[in-house]
């Protein structure tokens, strides 16, 4: 018997997950209800910076349906501090971060009190009865001002958290006598991740054991951290991430609300639930980006790069959260991108302000780096009068040069920038658009055409543990998988990588189907529960397939080897005389004699006649730690039409050619690319977390924070080239962040390309019609309009 599953990898399988998602049978955290469940609501600071003078809970406690109310002072002895797992320098300033503020608040939205009540309406009513008094302090809102002598201090130790220097090569020599030096300052605006599912937590105590359901990306990390923060023994904690509605980094966090839910469940001895409102979440979920990037590039007159010098100011916000300081440093290795150069210097200073803390947001450090290098490459091409693709080709690593160790010290295992760029160029009709652009410029058209280029790469597959250790990150970067062969031949796959929309249940089934030769339908993937999947490092950094997928392959290999020995006993031959063929161990030279993996699984279950010393189980585990990162790349080209009278930008066409290595499921890959591009476009054109001069978030609702709708986005043309990664047996590279990393510079470069004839050198993001119009007006006022 042979099965039809030999080539599951590469098939556009429709997702297993969809059945529950399209019928409303999904198990979101907020859907969970338990006997005796009570509801938590939080009171939050209306001030960006203030001393708490009193928190009067008496009226709230007396309100109908209220079980209890707490201030920070009530919990001070037991609440510990929220963890930061990435002390990037030995002298980093890492202030204590109480889950509930005790004496000082440092951003608008910080928790100052909690109410527990019988239902969510009663809890919300009681919050309005809390009388909290503050002595306002001056907010600290500007990074440069925060670092100036005499600035108001966010924390006693000052407003600088760390400075992290990095570099390679003789940077002085690279810039000395360089024929061309460009210097630019770019601004990465502050963004709000806005996963569609707001955060929610349910926590149930049973004796001294606690089960927490949380809308989290990281159930395993959360369990360890909850134990460390609260002192509750790790083995008494179970964390479950049920269906989770998107994360984009925002749920890669150990939150105040999770810690407080656990503490309040312990105090009250009954199950508690908290679900945030969107306007609460926009203030309290960590934000992303927010950097000032000073970048200098040195080149020869022919465009060959000599050196790159990058200085960052990165806004930490009010506190360091789980990986806050490490986020900008992930970009440190990516500024040099796909280009060869003689020297590179990087420095990043982390700055405290009285704003919501920042942390990982889709791409985490890499979109910032890619934006800056791809922007300045376009600027350099314009300065030299070269085509931007020609400038890139002159500097990129040629496909025959791989593996290639870059100036930042990473070894790119594979890539083919020529192939991806050629494909993108052709799909985009690059030359035709350039011709049309020239015609419009010559005619002095009102609506100009701009073409933006982004030839990006990124580091994925986080991460080799030894590298994380060398960067002072507290944990490893491995991933775990278990394969459980059931007696009836069905397979349970347990993965430590906790999905929240990525489609693991489908893609993992495809991989295991190929590895074990069992039908796709016979495989069930389990994840997101520390009791079911006890080991894992969870999902972020485009790591799941590269690291978790490889763990599956290794575990399946162990299952096959165990099966071989049992099959040899069943067939009365030596194990060496068997060969594996599509789900079956068969006798070499006599293929009719063989046993399927299902037959072997049943034999192992019955265990009546196993070879001497063989355990009655095929189940196998693997924990895989990668040797290297993976390096997806691609060429994205964007054409925009800019109405120079109104400033309105319309994306006319967008072509993305991505090389993510071997593709397990093209449907899922295409979906990730689409969504990623949309999120990068959102940064380029629409989104910004804005604060007023008192430090209040002006974009706390989705009426003010502009997530693009279907009407705001075009259709994208996507295609792929395939250069397998050599770093893992699947040849995969990761795709979760690619689109977001690539698209922001493609769009902004296109806008500037359209406006260069007016003397416009840059437009700050988001490039709203007003900003585009102003950039044109200001450049014209300077008399450079042609």
């Amino acid at each position: 018997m042979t099965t039809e599953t030999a080539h599951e990898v590469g098939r556009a399988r429709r997702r297993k997950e969809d059945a529950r998602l399209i019928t409303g049978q999904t198990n979101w955290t907020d859907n969970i209800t338990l006997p005796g469940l009570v509801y938590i609501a939080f009171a939050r600071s209306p001030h960006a910076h203030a001393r708490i003078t009193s928190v009067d809970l008496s009226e709230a406690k007396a309100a109908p349906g209220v079980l209890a109310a707490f201030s920070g002072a009530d919990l001070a002895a037991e609440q510990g501090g929220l963890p930061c797992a990435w002390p990037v320098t030995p002298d980093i300033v890492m202030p204590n971060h109480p889950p509930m503020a005790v004496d000082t608040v440092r951003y608008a939205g910080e928790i100052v009190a909690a109410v527990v009540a019988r239902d969510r309406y009663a809890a919300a009513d009681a919050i309005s009865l809390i009388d909290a008094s503050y002595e306002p302090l001056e907010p600290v809102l500007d990074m440069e001002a925060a670092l100036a002598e005499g600035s108001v201090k966010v924390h006693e130790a000052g407003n600088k958290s760390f400075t992290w220097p990095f570099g390679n090569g003789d940077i002085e020599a690279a810039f000395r006598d360089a024929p061309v030096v460009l210097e630019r300052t770019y601004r990465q605006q502050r963004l709000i991740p806005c996963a569609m599912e707001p955060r929610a937590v349910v926590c149930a105590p049973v004796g001294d054991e606690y089960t927490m359901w949380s809308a989290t990306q990281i159930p395993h990390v959360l369990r360890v951290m909850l134990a460390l923060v609260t002192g509750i023994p790790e083995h008494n904690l179970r964390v479950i991430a049920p269906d989770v509605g998107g994360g984009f980094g925002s749920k890669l966090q150990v939150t105040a609300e999770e810690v407080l839910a656990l503490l309040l469940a312990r105090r009250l001895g009954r199950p508690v639930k908290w679900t945030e409102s969107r306007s609460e979440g926009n203030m309290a979920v960590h934000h992303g980006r927010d950097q000032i990037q000073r970048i200098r590039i040195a080149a020869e007159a022919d465009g060959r790069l000599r050196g790159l010098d990058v200085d960052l100011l990165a806004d930490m916000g009010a506190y360091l959260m789980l990986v806050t300081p490490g986020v900008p440093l992930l970009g440190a290795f990516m500024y040099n991108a796909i280009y060869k150069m003689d020297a590179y210097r990087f420095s990043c200073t982390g700055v405290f302000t009285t704003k919501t803390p920042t942390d990982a947001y889709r791409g985490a450090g890499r979109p910032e780096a890619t934006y800056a290098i791809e922007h300045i490459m376009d600027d350099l091409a314009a300065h030299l009068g070269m085509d931007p693709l020609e400038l890139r080709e002159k500097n990129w690593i040629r496909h025959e040069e791989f593996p290639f160790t870059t100036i930042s010290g990473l070894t790119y295992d594979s890539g083919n920038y020529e192939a991806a760029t050629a494909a993108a160029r052709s799909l985009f009709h690059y030359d035709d658009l350039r011709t049309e652009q020239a015609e419009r410029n010559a005619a002095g058209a009102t609506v100009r055409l701009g073409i933006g280029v982004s030839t990006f790469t990124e580091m994925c597959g986080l991460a080799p543990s030894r590298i994380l250790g060398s960067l002072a990150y507290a944990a490893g970067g491995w991933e775990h998988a278990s394969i459980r062969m059931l007696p009836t031949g069905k397979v349970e796959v347990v993965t430590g990588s906790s999905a929240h929309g990525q489609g693991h249940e489908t893609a993992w089934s495809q991989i295991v189907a190929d590895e074990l030769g069992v039908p796709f339908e016979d495989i069930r993937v389990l994840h997101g529960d520390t009791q079911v999947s006890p080991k894992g490092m969870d999902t972020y950094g485009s790591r799941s397939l590269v690291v978790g997928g490889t763990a599956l392959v290794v575990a399946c290999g162990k299952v096959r080897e165990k099966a071989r020995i049992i099959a040899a006993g069943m067939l009365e031959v030596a194990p060496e005389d068997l060969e594996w063929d599509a789900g079956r161990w068969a006798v070499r030279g006599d293929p009719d004699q063989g046993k399927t993996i299902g037959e072997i699984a049943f034999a192992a279950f019955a265990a009546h006649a196993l070879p001497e010393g063989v355990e009655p189980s095929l189940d196998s585990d693997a924990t895989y730690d990668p040797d290297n990162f993976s390096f997806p790349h691609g060429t994205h080209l964007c054409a925009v039409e800019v109405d120079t009278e109104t400033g309105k930008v319309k994306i006319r066409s967008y072509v993305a050619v991505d090389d993510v290595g071997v593709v397990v499921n093209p449907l899922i890959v295409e979906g990730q690319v689409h969504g990623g591009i949309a999120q990068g476009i959102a940064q380029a054109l629409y989104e910004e977390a804005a604060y007023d001069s008192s430090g209040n978030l002006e974009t706390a609702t989705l009426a003010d924070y502009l997530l693009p709708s279907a009407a705001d986005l075009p259709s994208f043309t996507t295609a792929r080239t395939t250069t397998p990664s050599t770093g893992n047996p699947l040849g995969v590279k990761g795709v979760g962040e690619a689109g977001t990393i690539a698209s922001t510079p493609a769009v902004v470069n296109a806008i500037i390309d359209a406006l260069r004839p007016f003397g416009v050198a840059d437009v700050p993001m988001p490039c709203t019609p007003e900003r585009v119009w102003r950039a044109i007006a200001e450049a014209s006022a300077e008399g450079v309009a042609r």
Partner: protein
Amino acid sequence: MKISVNVDGVRYDDDVEPRLLLVHYLRDQAGRVGTPIGCDTTNCGACTVLMNGVSVKSCAVLAVQADGAEITTIQGLANGELHPLQRAFHEEHALQCGYCTPGMIIAAADLLRDNPHPTEEEVRDGLEGNLCRCTGYQNIVRAVLKAAGSAGVTA
């Protein structure tokens, strides 16, 4: 206040607070948790349901306003077999995390009732009130256009 509402074919007679939002009534009292909540300003559309056949954001309707109404949620859309839009969303990979999906499918059903053969632009404009953070909308648009051509879509 006493209300009588038909939700997905079942009649519920309940006593509710006048301020109770329909979405909270559906989720917390009727137990129809298939309709999720994504925001508090009626922008995201995740909680969209059909009220007497017309799509409404159930966070913008009071439970008492639904007295006497017939509500269809994502859980009541399939009639023995999947609704053509549910099938098309699956076939065209029009969802990732799936949080916006119930509202998106219900809004699309209403769109196709009004305009059985929309253009791509009409679909994009018609779904403007429903936000998705995962898909970039391309496959959602594709799914709606596909379902528009199939039988039973307006049923």
